[in-house]
């Protein structure tokens, strides 16, 4: 499945090479199966004219990697009831989720900033709806934002994944889903993409999530870089497809745009998969804008595949599709999706058939299995409801039970496909049971609907329970969704062409100058060696079976006449293939792979060297303005404000001109009279009273402007009463100091009072209360007067009357 692709695309976005899930075709990548997004791009599909919106906690619309594609018409703030979906900023960056999801879909390409979105030419919007009370009204409003304009709604949230919750959309949100599917996109139907649950570790089961269970949502699961099951993954029969994400502590996470105009490599969980799938679906909508919401699901069923995804429950359903409760129909394939979408004709109308409606109440025996079967013609007698070929199957079940987590439910289709509608949930002690809960399965997709359906319910107590209290199946009904005729037509356009996909079509295989000749066409006059040539031998045949015995090569020849030459399909490391001469040439020393001989044509480097993408060279030390990324062994750009950084774009050690280092970041040296606004990352103007400041208001001055004085943390034109201006060394302005107590105005010093408060008498430069002006000791005070000591404050306190009379 994985093809090494020498013509991999290059983008100057610094974190492009860290997007490991976009490079699974590379030789040294650990993710062995491709989602083939680059291949879809090469066919020209990048999401143009498609509108995606992220329902979440907001979107940083002025993020440098989102601003170009941001679409205000696809955005709204339901929490704040206005048109600005910007997230609420706080110290914990709690509302980063929406911005991270948005970057995955439509981060700009080739703008030297952060990453490249899966649909980097799509329009991206955001609906801020999680940052407040989420109610049915909030959800319904969010799901109904401009359905005639928005194509795809992506949601990476849901009910609590605590392994004991059963919850889903309320009445209004359900109506919003139905309205969107029926009337959205001018009748083609809105596309709702939903992240499957994250409660794997709590033993949760995503059939208890009404959003992923809905037929109107595309529920997307995740797999790790190595194709393993992530620790958080939940199983259920409603999962449709899978993308890469994080999932094991030693495996890499997802890189995307982050809050405060940054970039992160820590985006995780199934939150990643919904936007990634939404971006891939956007490529398909660009290929064929007339796809209906059901067409998109059909396309995903048809083109997703197990690849190397590891699960022990892969089965082949009655229509020949491989399906699993972990990954649905498997890893999405963007290229196959766009190729199929181009030539897709809409599937027939959806029919809905209530095949079974059983209201008999029955006890569910402990440990044994309650099995109930129903034979159905799938409404064959009703032409407007007849379902011959299945899409979604919904079992609407009501059960009373003392401990819901002990229940396990399976549904077996006429073709024998067994869908696990519910698994045991050890943490679910609820005695609420299920009330008309709609368990949905996509596992019977494409199968015949007619025949015997079997529902199996098992009660497997995880703990000792009161034996008298048994579960009861109160009623259940089976609703079949699908088409009366084959969705792809008996031998319709897709059928003939879809079969071509199984076979390598010419354009999918690397063009070869010469088709390898089958045995029968070997020319008769080949006398010396009549055996089979090596597959790499060209049309001139060979003189032996070995690759070094060819007379010419199909692909490339390696080596030279002195060192013996042989034919190879791909040039080894340290060489590059010259298609014209069909020869392998040596790269410049230090290059591991290259596109030419010169030192500036290196694509990757030998151990110990770093690949400098700007110049395509291999260097021992990354130049100024770049840092060495050890994992990728390349030089990545520092943040534009850093001259030197270490390990990460934002961990600066030396700043560019006009910036200064503050806590490992480079902050612009704003001109006097301005300050650095970290929100908007630019210099803002100080208040006119400030010479320098840390913010726009009068209270945020550092130094005062000329003719202003500093008093109580503010710059004032003049000191207030009870204060006097004082020059302070080291400050470019005077400071208002408080006069002594009881003094209204003083000059030069707090003690040099020139006017006392009422009720006080000025005595020299002091203020004394009128009724307490007396002498401590008459003799002593005479001595003070005669020695003219009344100037001294200390003596004034003891000889108030004498000094007052002495003037």
């Amino acid at each position, binding site marked *: 499945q994985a093809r090494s692709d020498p013509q991999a695309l290059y983008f100057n976005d610094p974190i492009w090479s860290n997007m490991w899930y976009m490079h699974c075709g590379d030789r040294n990548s650990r993710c062995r199966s491709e989602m083939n997004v680059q291949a879809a791009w090469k066919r020209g599909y990048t999401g143009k004219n498609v509108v995606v919106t992220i329902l*979440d*906690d907001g979107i940083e619309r002025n993020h440098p990697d989102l601003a170009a594609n941001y679409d205000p018409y696809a955005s709204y703030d339901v929490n704040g*009831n206005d048109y600005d979906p910007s997230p609420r900023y706080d110290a914990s960056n709690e509302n980063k*989720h929406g911005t991270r999801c948005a970057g995955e879909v439509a981060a700009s390409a080739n703008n030297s900033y952060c990453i490249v979105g899966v649909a980097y030419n799509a329009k991206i919007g955001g609906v801020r709806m*999680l940052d407040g*009370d*989420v*109610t*049915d*009204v909030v*959800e*319904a*409003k*969010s*799901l*109904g*934002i401009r*359905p005639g304009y928005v194509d795809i709604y992506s949601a*990476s*949230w*849901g*009910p*609590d*994944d605590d392994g004991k*919750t059963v*919850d889903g959309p*309320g*009445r*209004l949100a359900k*109506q*919003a889903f139905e*309205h*969107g599917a029926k*009337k959205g996109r001018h009748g083609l139907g809105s596309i709702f993409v939903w*992240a*499957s*649950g*994250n409660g794997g570790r709590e033993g949760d089961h995503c059939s208890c999530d009404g959003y992923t269970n809905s037929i109107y949502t595309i529920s997307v699961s995740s797999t790790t870089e190595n194709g393993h099951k992530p620790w958080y993954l939940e199983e259920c029969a409603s999962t449709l497809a899978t993308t890469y994400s994080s999932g094991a502590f030693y495996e890499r996470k997802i890189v995307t745009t982050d809050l405060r105009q940054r970039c992160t490599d820590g985006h995780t*969980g*199934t*939150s990643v998969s*919904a936007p990634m799938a939404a971006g891939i679906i956007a490529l398909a909508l660009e290929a064929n804008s007339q796809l209906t919401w059901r067409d998109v699901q059909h396309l995903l069923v048809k083109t997703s595949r197990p690849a190397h995804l590891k699960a022990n429950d892969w089965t082949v359903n009655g229509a020949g599709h491989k399906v699993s409760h972990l990954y649905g129909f498997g890893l999405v394939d963007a290229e196959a999706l766009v190729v199929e979408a181009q030539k897709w004709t809409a599937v027939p109308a959806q029919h809905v058939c209530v095949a079974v409606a059983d209201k008999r109440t029955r006890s569910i025996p402990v440990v044994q299995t309650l099995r109930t079967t129903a034979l159905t013609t799938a409404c064959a007698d009703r032409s407007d409801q007849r379902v011959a070929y299945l899409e979604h199957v919904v079992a609407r079940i009501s059960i009373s039970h003392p401990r819901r987590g002990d229940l396990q439910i399976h549904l077996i289709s006429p073709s024998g496909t067994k869908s696990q509608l519910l698994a045991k949930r050890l943490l679910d002690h*609820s005695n*609420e049971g299920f009330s008309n809960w709609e368990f949905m399965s996509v596992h019977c997709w494409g199968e015949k609907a007619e025949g015997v359906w079997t529902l199996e319910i098992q009660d497997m107590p995880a703990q000792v329970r009161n034996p008298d209290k048994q579960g009861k199946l109160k009623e259940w009904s089976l609703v079949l969704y699908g088409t009366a005729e084959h969705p792809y037509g008996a031998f319709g356009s897709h059928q003939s062409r879809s079969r071509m996909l199984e076979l390598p079509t010419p354009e999918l295989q690397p063009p070869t100058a010469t088709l390898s000749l089958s045995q029968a066409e070997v020319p008769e006059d080949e006398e010396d060696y009549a055996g089979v040539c090596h597959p790499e031998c060209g049309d001139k045949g060979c003189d032996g079976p070995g690759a070094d015995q060819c007379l010419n090569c199909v692909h490339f020849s390696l080596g030279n006449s002195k060192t013996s030459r042989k034919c190879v399909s791909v040039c080894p490391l340290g060489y590059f293939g010259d298609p014209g001469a069909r020869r392998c040439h040596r790269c410049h020393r230090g290059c591991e792979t290259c596109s030419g001989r010169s030192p500036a044509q290196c694509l990757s480097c030998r151990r110990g060297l770093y690949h400098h993408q700007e110049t395509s060279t291999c260097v021992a030390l990354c130049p100024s303005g770049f840092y060495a990324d050890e994992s990728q062994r390349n030089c990545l750009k520092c943040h534009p404000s850093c001259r030197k950084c270490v390990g990460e774009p934002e961990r600066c050690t030396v700043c560019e001109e006009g910036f200064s280092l503050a806590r490992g970041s480079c902050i612009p040296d704003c001109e006097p009279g301005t300050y650095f606004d970290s929100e908007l990352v630019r210099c803002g103007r100080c208040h006119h009273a400030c010479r320098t400041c840390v913010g726009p208001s009068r209270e945020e001055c550092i130094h005062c402007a000329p003719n202003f004085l500093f008093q109580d943390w503010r710059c004032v034109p003049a000191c207030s009463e009870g204060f006097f201006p004082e020059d302070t060394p080291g400050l470019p302005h005077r400071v208002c100091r408080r006069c002594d107590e009881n003094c209204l105005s003083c000059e030069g010093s707090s003690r040099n009072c020139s006017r006392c408060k009422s009720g006080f008498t000025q005595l020299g430069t002091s203020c004394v209360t009128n009724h307490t002006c007396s002498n401590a000791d008459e003799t002593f005070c005479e001595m003070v007067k005669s020695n003219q000591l009344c100037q001294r404050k200390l003596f004034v306190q003891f000889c108030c009357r004498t000094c007052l009379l002495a003037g």
Partner: protein
Amino acid sequence: PPPRPVYTNHWAVQVLGGRAEADRVAAAHGYRNLGQIGNLDDYYHFYHSKTFKRSTWSSRGPHTFLRMDPQVKWLQQQQVRRRVKR
């Protein structure tokens, strides 16, 4: 025991007769009509500023007579739904 519901001072109300009628019904019972709920025709978002913003009890008081207004086909006091980011 299952988590207790948390009621808000927001209502979803189904009123036939268009926006004007919904405004009239809202004003008559002390609510403010915040407009149609997304793309759902005849469904409106009512808000009452004089009741508890959040409560574990459903709302009581004269404003609940809205339920008996003949123009009101259906209404539901909105509960907080716990949603987690994945």
